[in-house]
């Protein structure tokens, strides 16, 4: 039953991912990606990471993808954003490369997992009562991972400044 639910979710996610790269219009790609992210959020819930599942929706679906849509629409008011994609050899090569990469990594991960009889590879492990809750996550971020956290905040600040500088119209 669980496996079935997971299979449905996962295959939907893969289809959505394929939709991102295969659909003709940028809007469709973005919508597929939104779908993919929502499915991922649900998958996070199945992994007991509720905080991150919700954060996934807030950050990716609620902010980043809206920003994408905003930019796509802004550009499409001024020109054609959907480029006509030519059918060239790159597509075939890229596809083959992707398949081979997936196969390589997959085999490489699957073989050791299959050969080791460790139980944690086949079933999720018992967890603490507050696994996935926001409190331990926040505690870890502000204590043990304080320096990386501050570094990331610096990065975000640079991102803000950079995007404002880029997006600002030059005043003549």
């Amino acid at each position: 039953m669980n496996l079935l639910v997971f299979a449905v979710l996962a295959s939907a996610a893969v289809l959505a991912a394929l939709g991102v790269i295969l659909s003709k219009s940028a809007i469709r790609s973005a919508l597929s990606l939104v779908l993919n992210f929502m499915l991922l959020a649900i998958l996070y819930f199945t992994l007991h990471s509720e905080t991150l599942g919700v954060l996934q929706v807030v950050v990716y679906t609620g902010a980043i993808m809206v920003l994408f849509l905003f930019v796509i629409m802004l550009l499409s008011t001024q020109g054609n954003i959907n480029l006509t994609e030519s059918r060239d050899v790159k597509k075939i090569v890229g596809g083959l490369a992707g398949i081979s990469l997936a196969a390589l990594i997959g085999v490489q991960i699957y073989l050791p997992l299959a050969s080791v009889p460790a139980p944690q590879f086949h079933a999720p492990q018992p967890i603490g009562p507050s696994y996935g809750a926001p409190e331990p996550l926040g505690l870890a971020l502000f204590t043990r991972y304080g320096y990386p956290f501050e570094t990331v905040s610096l990065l975000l600040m640079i991102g803000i400044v950079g995007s404002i500088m880029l997006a600002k119209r030059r005043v003549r």
Partner: protein
Amino acid sequence: MTGVPLIGYLALSILMFCIGAVGVVIRRNPIVIFMCIELMLNAANLAFLSFARYQPWKPAVGQIPTVNAYDVRGQVMVVFVMAVAAAEVAVGLGILMAIFRLRDRVDVDDLNTLSG
């Protein structure tokens, strides 16, 4: 989710990552390329979380299970990845807007002035 092996999540992660990588190569639209990068980042996030969930957890004898830093590591990484992705998108889309304003057209293959 009981009954699902780790390899299931990992397979999804790998597939998403590879689809993203292929997308970066085959698409000409830089916005879509950005989306593909986001896809790859999310694949990594999924892998982080599933490994975190499936890692062996060793409670001390006679203690009720509590969350410790060991449990949170994977989730912390995901938070960082999300923050980095947000910064990347903000700057990247800003660059796209600037390019569009300059050229009235966004095509990655047009942007080859840095050729040797």
